[in-house]
């Protein structure tokens, strides 16, 4: 077996120029997959962080039935203040939970001078909100402050609708839980950009206290959790199930993946694109090295026929040739992984200026993520493509009668 492998390895390096070309073809394909996949995953990560640290948090907790019924019966599926405070305390004690905050959403009109502009409001806790808004960029003014209970911030698109700038005085109008109209005077403290145009065009954030005063209701709608790591979402989701059961809490939890629909659509689209790229690169690698493998086998037809004439079974000759292809794939794939990781590190250090993705508002400086699953897949594809490229020439070589192949015909 040692001699068998040695023979395969020596055959791989028999024609060094040709082997170098084959290895480069495989390495280039492998590196292209790693870099392309790394760029896409970098975009995924940017979109994910926008969704998590700009809008949804990692997990949101609601009164059970909220999602199905809150449009029909907005007042029925809310969490009373005392219960919400108790739940927040319980949630803070869970492993991996870094931050917890309450929110209340509402809709209303902004009145400024003679303009009336509709908005979607979010009541937030000013002292907690910065942690939940790391991916929100302030374009003007400053963020919410517990020292300024009547200071609000709006998305850039919304501020443009009423021509607001930091310091602008606004009146917020909405309906209370009982159906009456109510209004409150506030000051625009800042203008933000959250990365999603639709969000920026409609969103106003206000301190929870002023929102509760405006809608005359102190019940919480959502309790939002931020974890230490996004990867821990499934673990915390299980812990929440257990907590709700143990404490007899009539609550439900939704992970960010079920809330960030825009993120999910983009990821789904790019994943499809990544699959197409994989097929294209795999085909290019197979075609690129197929000719090299074929040439190598044709040149050795007398040698291969000699082996068979000496009594070596066709299966063993096939194993030898496929082992050579396997070794070529392994070497090319390993080179490709090294090359891909090197390109990823250099490109990430420099940064790629990306325009804003479809539906988003901000360009960003991206990089190439080194994703272990992509490294493994690219390596496996290199090996698989190398083997696939050898299948036809090997089959053809072994079909030939020994006597005819020995004549070199």
């Amino acid at each position: 077996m040692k001699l068998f492998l040695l023979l395969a390895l020596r055959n791989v390096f028999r024609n060094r120029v040709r082997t170098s070309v084959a290895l480069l073809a495989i390495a280039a394909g492998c590196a292209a997959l790693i870099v392309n996949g790394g760029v896409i995953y970098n975009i995924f990560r940017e979109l994910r962080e926008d969704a998590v640290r700009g809008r949804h948090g990692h997990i949101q907790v609601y009164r059970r039935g909220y999602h199905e019924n809150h449009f029909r019966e907005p007042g029925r599926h809310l969490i009373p203040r005392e219960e919400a405070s108790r739940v927040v305390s319980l949630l803070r004690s869970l492993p991996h939970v870094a931050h917890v905050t309450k929110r209340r959403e509402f809709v209303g009109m902004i009145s400024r001078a003679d303009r009336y502009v509709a908005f979607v409001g979010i009541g937030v806790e000013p002292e907690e909100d910065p942690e939940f808004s790391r991916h929100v960029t302030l374009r003007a003014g400053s963020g919410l402050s517990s020292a300024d209970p009547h200071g609000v911030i709006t998305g850039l698109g919304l501020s443009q609708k009423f021509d607001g700038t930091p310091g602008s005085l606004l009146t917020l109008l909405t309906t209370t839980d009982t159906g009456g109209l109510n209004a409150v005077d506030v000051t625009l403290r800042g203008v933000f950009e959250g990365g999603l145009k639709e969000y920026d065009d409609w969103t106003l954030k206000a301190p929870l206290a002023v929102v509760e005063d405006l809608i005359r209701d102190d019940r919480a709608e959502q309790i939002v959790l931020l974890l230490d790591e996004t990867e821990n979402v499934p673990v915390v989701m299980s812990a929440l199930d257990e907590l709700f059961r143990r404490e007899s809490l009539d609550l439900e939890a939704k992970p960010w993946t079920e809330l960030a629909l825009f993120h999910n659509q983009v990821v789904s689209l790019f994943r499809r694109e990544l699959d197409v790229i994989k097929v294209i690169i795999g085909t290019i690698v197979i075609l690129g090295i197929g000719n090299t493998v074929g040439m190598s086998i044709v040149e050795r037809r007398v040698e291969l026929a000699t082996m068979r004439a000496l009594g070596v079974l066709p299966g063993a000759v096939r194993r030898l040739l496929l082992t050579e292809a396997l070794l070529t794939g392994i070497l090319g794939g390993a080179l490709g992984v090294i090359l891909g990781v090197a390109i990823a590190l250099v490109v990430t250090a420099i940064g790629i200026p990306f325009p804003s993705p479809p539906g988003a508002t901000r360009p960003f400086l991206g990089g190439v993520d080194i994703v272990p699953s992509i490294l493994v897949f690219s390596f496996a594809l290199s090996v698989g493509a190398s083997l696939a490229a050898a299948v036809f020439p090997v089959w053809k070589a072994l079909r030939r009668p020994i006597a005819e192949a020995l004549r070199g015909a």
Partner: protein
Amino acid sequence: MIRLEAVGRAYGVGAARLKALEGVSLGVDAGEFVAVAGPSGSGKTTLLNLMAGIDAPTSGRVLFEGRDLAGLRAADLATLRLRRVGLVFQQFNLIPVLTAEENVLFPLLFRSDLGAQERRRAARTALERVGLSGVCGRRPAQMSGGEQQRVAVARALAGTPSLVLADEPTANLDHETGGAVIRLMRELNRERGTTFLYATHDPELVRLADRVVTLRDGSVAEASG
């Protein structure tokens, strides 16, 4: 040991059909040292290929120790060659990336009846016997033509076959070296009782055989000895 009964081999079809052998009947007994003589194109290589089971006759039968080769599956034919038949080629046909010892060892790797130690010992013994124990680590490109052919003879003999078929083993060697190779084969034939059939068109080398089968235009023109 091996018998051919009215064997014919033709290539192509219709008007392009070419008869390489026709109606050849021949028997070779165990321990014989037989030369197959004849000019180029007379059918010597085809005859040896049929005897080795790497080609099949279009008519007649080839019997190896009483078994018709046509009745054997490809895998059985391969096993027969691996264990019972040694082959020596005109162009030596050594594997260029293997050393002399590895070349001799290579076919033995597929002998499940031999252990690793036995294989290595057999390869070294065969190389010693052909006088090449000093070049075990050299690759074919580092050896002379005569040395390469002796490695090929060692490869054919290492598995202790009962029949060795050598197709013009001296054609690419000078006269003196070619003679040395045939004399080596002759010694091995006497020492081990291995049956040898070698094709040649050199009259001096033909004379070293016990028996000469002369082919002309695909038929046996003369059998002597």
